């Protein structure tokens, strides 16, 4: 089991950032790498257990299941059901915390998963930087005050 942790500071109130990311079906609207997404079985996107089925811009298909969603804690977590990444037991959490000093947001995104030992470094980089940090960078641009 390895853990990848990425955190950043976004210059906008946590409410504004959360409004962007709480939609489990909203990845195409705020990440730079998702082309299109839908929720399977006509479920609402904030129903715990729903599955998002999305296509990456590079063509890969991923299915992820919503495990936790908390408007109180600004936090959600999800698992990967199917993907071309070559990871098992993948659970990720995205969490926002208000920074009272400057009314901005501390954003954390981390994942734990299993993979082939010789791919740990590559996958840590791809997920930590290519997905999580890229997502934060995109959010910073979108919510800029």
């Amino acid at each position: 089991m390895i853990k990848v942790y990425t955190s950043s500071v976004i210059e906008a109130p946590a409410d504004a950032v959360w409004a962007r990311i709480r939609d489990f079906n909203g990845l195409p609207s705020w990440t730079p790498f998702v082309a299109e997404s839908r929720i399977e079985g006509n479920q609402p996107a904030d129903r715990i257990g729903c599955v998002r089925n999305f296509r990456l811009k590079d063509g890969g298909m991923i299915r992820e299941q919503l495990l936790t969603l908390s408007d109180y804690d600004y936090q959600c977590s999800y698992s990967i059901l199917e993907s071309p990444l070559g990871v098992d037991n993948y659970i990720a959490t995205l969490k926002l915390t208000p920074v009272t000093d400057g009314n901005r947001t501390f954003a954390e995104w981390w994942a734990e998963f299993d993979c082939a030992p010789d791919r740990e470094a590559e996958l840590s980089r791809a997920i930590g930087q290519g997905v999580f940090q890229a997502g934060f960078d995109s959010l910073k641009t979108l919510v800029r005050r």
Partner: protein
Amino acid sequence: MIRVTRSAIVDAPIERVWAVLRDFNSHTAWHPVVAESAIENDEPSDQVGCVRSFTLKDGNHIREQLLALSDAEHVSTYCILDATLPMRRYVATVQLKRVTDGDRTFWHWQSTFDAPRGREQEFADLVGKGVYEGGFDGLRAFLRRRPGTPVTPGATNAPALRATAGDALSTQGIVVSRFGGPETLETRTLAVPPPGRGEVRIRHAAIGVNYIDVYVRTGEYPFIEPPAPPGMEAAGEVLDLGDGVTHLLPGDRVAYACAPPGAYVGVRTLPARHVVVLPDDIDAESAAALMLKGMTAEYLLHRSHAVRTGETLLVHAAAGGVGLLLCQWAKALGARVIGTVSTEDKARAARAAGCDAVIVGRDAAFATAVHDATAGRGADVIYDGLGRAAARENLAALAMCGHWICYGHATGAIEQLSLREIGEKSATVSSPVLFHYTDDPATLREMASRTFDALRRGLIRLDIRHRYPLAAAAQAHRDLESRRTIGPLVLLP
């Protein structure tokens, strides 16, 4: 129940911030509202269950107990046991998180407590603004003042404030191989033990040379047992700390002047209570050259006797290390200064330092000249480093109700002086020793601070003309003993 939450981003790596915050007694160093603090019963400040007892600058007193501490999660939880403020059931948690984007630190500070009905907002503001927001700013300022040594990310957090796993370091040093002349000073490789409880290990950048080092070398002052290094003052950088040291951090620029001898080395471990943090604008060479002599002038002019405008002072050896500082500083305080020196060259130096009158001579006959210069009144205060050979003259040169301060005794200690003789002038006689003043850490910090401030404001000046490599310490001693040097001498490791 009141809940107060504040959070901030600190522009420093989490290891650096946690090194400060995990120490339950560090808040005196960085929190602007904390005046004094101590851990009760001498317990380590990272022992869960320990109690810090502290006073706020507004006079309130609080006792808080450490309930939980996690180096893994960077969390510290504590509660108030009792306080002079009407707050009940106060439990607070400090948590740090790493901001991987930019290697900064997210600091979350939260508490719950009860306050008297109708005063909830007052106490919510007191805690949220006064304590938490004030603390954010205080710690940021503290980290700017003392940027410290970068800590490698991923290294264990805890040791940043503690001894580093017992590694001895090796250093080059000068030892007095046996009591005697300058030739007894020899270069040796020495082992420097890791700092124990209350100790600090320092890498010296500059070492001050003082005449007392000669007395230590010859054995006249029985302060060391050869072979051992001499040296009373130095400046440098903190390498590591033992438990129980709360006023220093690794990487701090520091100086000391009052420790036991042992400064003629590259790296040294010594009791941390002798060590002060240097202001940013005071470089290590100046600190090493100034601290002992400057703090001597500080206590002589402000503590042994508080010099007042218009007083006439007699300063012996006015061109010496302490003498020049006494003359400059006393003039800035508005005193009239008469100096004694041995040669015309030194008379020029004394006049340049502000002496109103200079008496030149080697025969210790100056009382008449002092009376001539004061219309027969004599000197209100005498700063005497000469000792026995000049005792009669000093008493004769003293004004009625004057103060004779014997802070040194180059010609031997005065052993016979009767109360009757002192009484004939209603005189005050003091025999102060620097180390007795600096023994109290708070007084030491005041003295060092006033000395550095005097340098900064130009009240005293420093002209370092004599620099030697540490290995040339014997030559430095020869030059000092030849009386040819003017101003301070420093050794550079």
